[in-house]
Structure formats: structure tokens, C-alpha cells
């Protein structure tokens, strides 16, 4: 027992960088997971992925201009991803093409541009760092940025909750009563990008999507309402964050993928045993109905 406690607690007690990493993943979960829930329920799960790729050219441009500077790379990433979202939205409105196709087109352009920019004056290591981050090297500035974005995200979601929900399931009604549907949609995209960018140094943009979508998709198998889903997904993200850090510490593996893989484990367990529509759960329920 004490051995277990020691292996769980000691790394965090002993090493400040582990404590920092833990606080960073918890703050990231607070902001990212609720956004993920809204995306899952709006059938926009892949938009998170597209935005994560879209961050790259901006971040790379920031890197080229200012070196490894967090503000420059964050700002660049934010602007690039929003530009992709706006361009995709414009093409969707102006042509018969659907949103998924225009999003895919623009994020692929952005990704290629990003890789090209990195190759101009970077190395493989820089590119890997941008895509996958390093949570064990989070400094004060990054931690503050993560905490600030998480706080703003929760406030903004609370403020826009009603129009955001209405826009999600009945956009025509919201438009007919003159509600701020377009603003709610835009706000969601801005928050999405802000969270991806803030997760940039800790997890890298690609791994950040994992912390955003996997807990949300897992929570859907346990609870029905959006608030319950958001709360549960934050909890799943926080526990997975701690477990992933420990896994990475003890097995000497990179931390970002460990955290996301633990999230993935939670997702697969939920798919199988979730109280709502879990595969095994449904089989068991069906069997008990038959024997009655």
C-alpha cells in the first residue's frame, strides 16, 4: 500500500517540474474538455483536429521571426487557425461546398505551409516540439497562459451557454428570434483555437486535441446532459493527466503521448462498459431482458 502511495505521490512531492506538469494538465482539462463536449454534441469532432493542424504555419512563422518565443508562436498560431476557420466558413457560405470539405482543404494547405516554414530554419526536433510539446518543460509564462485561457473559456461558455446550445440543435429557431447564433459559433471557434494554442507548449497542438476530444467522447457513454458531460470529461481529463504523467515518469516515456493514451484507455473502457450504450453493457441488458 505504502509502495503504491509512494509511486503515485513521490514524483509529485519530489520534483517541482512534475507538480507544474500536473497543474498544467489539470488547467488544460478544465478548458479543453468542455469545449470537446460541445464539439462532440455538435458533430464537429474533426474540426478540433483540423484547427490543431491549422495552428502550425502561424506558430512556425512566429518561430521564424522571434525564435522560441511563446507569445510570438501563440499569437501566430491563433491568427493562422482563425484565418483557416474564417476562410473555410466563407467558402461554405459562398459556394455549395459543405463545411467539412472546405475545412479539410484549408487545414491541409495550412499544414503544408507550416511544415515548409519550419524546414526553412528549423530542425526535425523543432517540428516535433510544435506537434507534441513537452509538458515537463512548462515554465511560468506558459502555466499562466494555460490558466488564463481555461478561466476565460469557462466564463465564456457559461455566458454564451443558452445561444450556444440553441445554435447547436435548432439554429433556424435561434435565427428566427434574432439570437446571436453566428456569434455563438464564432465564439466556439475562438475558444477552441485559444485552448489549442495554450496547450501548445505543454502538449503540442496534436496531443492537445486528444485531451480535448477523448474525455468528451468517453463522457458521452456515461451521462446525458451537457453540463454533466462537461464535468465528467474534466474529471476524466484530470485523472488521465495525472496517470499519464506517472506512466511517463516511471516508464521513462514521453509525457504527452502517455497522457493522451491514458485518455484513450478511458475512452475504450467507456465504449465497452459505459452505462449509456456501452457495447458490453447493452449486451448484458439485452440478455437480462430475454431471461425475464
Amino acid at each position, binding site marked *: 500500500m505504502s509502495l503504491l502511495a509512494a509511486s503515485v505521490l513521490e514524483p509529485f512531492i519530489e520534483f517541482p517540474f512534475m507538480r507544474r506538469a500536473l497543474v498544467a494538465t489539470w488547467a488544460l482539462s478544465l478548458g479543453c474538455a468542455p469545449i470537446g463536449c460541445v464539439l462532440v454534441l455538435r458533430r464537429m469532432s474533426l474540426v478540433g483536429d483540423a484547427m490543431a493542424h491549422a495552428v502550425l504555419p502561424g506558430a512556425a512563422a512566429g518561430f521564424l521571426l522571434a525564435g522560441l518565443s511563446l507569445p510570438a508562436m501563440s499569437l501566430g498560431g491563433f491568427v493562422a487557425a482563425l484565418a483557416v476557420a474564417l476562410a473555410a466558413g466563407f467558402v461554405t457560405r459562398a459556394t455549395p461546398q459543405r463545411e467539412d470539405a472546405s475545412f479539410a482543404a484549408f487545414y491541409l494547405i495550412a499544414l503544408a505551409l507550416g511544415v515548409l516554414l519550419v524546414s526553412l530554419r528549423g530542425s526535425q526536433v523543432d517540428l516535433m516540439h510544435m506537434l507534441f510539446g513537452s509538458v515537463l518543460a512548462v515554465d511560468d509564462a506558459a502555466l499562466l497562459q494555460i490558466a488564463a485561457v481555461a478561466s476565460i473559456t469557462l466564463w465564456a461558455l457559461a455566458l*454564451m451557454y*443558452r445561444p450556444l446550445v440553441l445554435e447547436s*440543435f*435548432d439554429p433556424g*429557431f435561434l435565427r*428566427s*428570434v434574432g*439570437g446571436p447564433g453566428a456569434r455563438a459559433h464564432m465564439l466556439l471557434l475562438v475558444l477552441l483555437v485559444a485552448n489549442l494554442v495554450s496547450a501548445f507548449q505543454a502538449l503540442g497542438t496534436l496531443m492537445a486535441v486528444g485531451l480535448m476530444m477523448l474525455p468528451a467522447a468517453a463522457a458521452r457513454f456515461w451521462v446525458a446532459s451537457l453540463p454533466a458531460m462537461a464535468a465528467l470529461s474534466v474529471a476524466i481529463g484530470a485523472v488521465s493527466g495525472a496517470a499519464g504523467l506517472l506512466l511517463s515518469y516511471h516508464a521513462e516515456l514521453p509525457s504527452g503521448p502517455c497522457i493522451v493514451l491514458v485518455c484513450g484507455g478511458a475512452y475504450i473502457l467507456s465504449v465497452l462498459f459505459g452505462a449509456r450504450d456501452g457495447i458490453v453493457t447493452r449486451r448484458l441488458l439485452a440478455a437480462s431482458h430475454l431471461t425475464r
Partner: protein
Amino acid sequence: MADATPAISLRDLTVSYRGHPAVHHLSGAFRAGSLTAVVGPNGAGKSSLLGALGGTIREFEGRIERDPALRVAYLPQASALDRSFPVRVHEVVAMGAWARIGSFGALRAADNAAVVDALVAVGLSGFDKRWLGELSAGQAQRVLFARVLMQDASVILLDEPFNAIDARTTADLLALLHRWKREARTVIAVLHDLAQVREHFEQVLLLARERVAWGPTAEVLKAEHLFKARQMAEAWDESAPACKVSA
């Protein structure tokens, strides 16, 4: 009998949908306190017209004249609703109070009582805690009618309200339409079932991208008009450059 002021007047209205003009040069008036059916072949521009009247399509030329104080309730086609989204029946109906509560306002006790009343009126008493996704298509449509009741509007726009709805629900909701007429509300509904229109609606607008006929039901739904509407729909040239609406 002769109506005093129309609820909505159209002056040379041309409505565009996704960059293409869908309704052309439509003029006429919806009588206040009447039940008007909008009928016509597929692609005749019926939904686009309703969208323009309901304020969801803003790409139009010409004029839509109505008293700005009139409250309009617009019920889009059922396919526009994502029923898998986790919201409870009570929450959906309560949003009918949007004109007062908006994004941030709180629901009062009176609003909650009105939700319960509206659910009773559509035959769904006791359903307020249920998830929208648990309901049948007919029950979901009753929920949306309850929301229209909550909106307490003087003009009610319904886009194919009885599509894929069982006969019992259709009959109940038609009764609600007649109640709205008795309350002097104006109802404008896009419909397909001409027998239903003849039985329940006193006014008809027959549309085939432009006005074919508009007036009392018996006069509009004559064979010659229906034939003409069908011909106009078939003869339509999709790429015609005429009367392009500037976006």
C-alpha cells in the same frame, strides 16, 4: 368579413437562396387572422419565402411590409432540428420566451407555468422532464408547437409542419391551427396535402417560383392553376441570368 389591414404585405419580393433567386417578383397580402396555405411543386420557393418572412433568409429584394410590433413565430422544417442533442422537453419549450429572456434573462415562475400549459395544449402533459431524443417524430413536432404557443406570436409561420407525422398528431395540431385562427392570429403554412388544404385553409398562395394564384382556396386550387404551376416548375431554367439578386 372584408379584412381591414393585412398582416403582411409583399411588394415585388424576390428571394435568393444560396445565391440563386428562388422566388420572383411576388406581390400580395396575407390577410390578418387568416389561415393561408402556401402550396406548389418541389423547388417552387415555398420554404425560401417562409424563411424571408421569418427573418432567417435576409437575401431578398423588394419589400416585406408588416407592423414591426407584430411578433412572428417561425417553425422551420423538422429536418433542421438535431433531435439527438441532449435537451429536455421543458428547456426546448421554455425557449419560446426568448423575446423576453434573450441570452441571459432568467425564467420566471410564470414562464414555467406557461411551459406546463403549452405542453398540456399539445397533448404532452407530464413530458417536461423527458429528453427530446426519446420522443417520436410526432411527439417532437408537438413539442415545437408548444414552443410556438410560448412565443405568443400574432403571425405564425409553419414549414411543412405535418411531414412524416402520424394522422392523430396531425389532427391534433390542425385543431391548434383553428384555435390560433379563433384567437385572431395569422397562420401561414407550407403544405403538400391539397385535400388537407381544401378542408382547413381558407386562403391559398400557389407558388411556382412566382405567383400562380393567390386568394380563396376554391378559386386558387383549380385544375388549370395546378397544371400551370406544374408546367412553370418544369420549364424553369436554373441558369437563367434574369433578376439576379445582389447579395
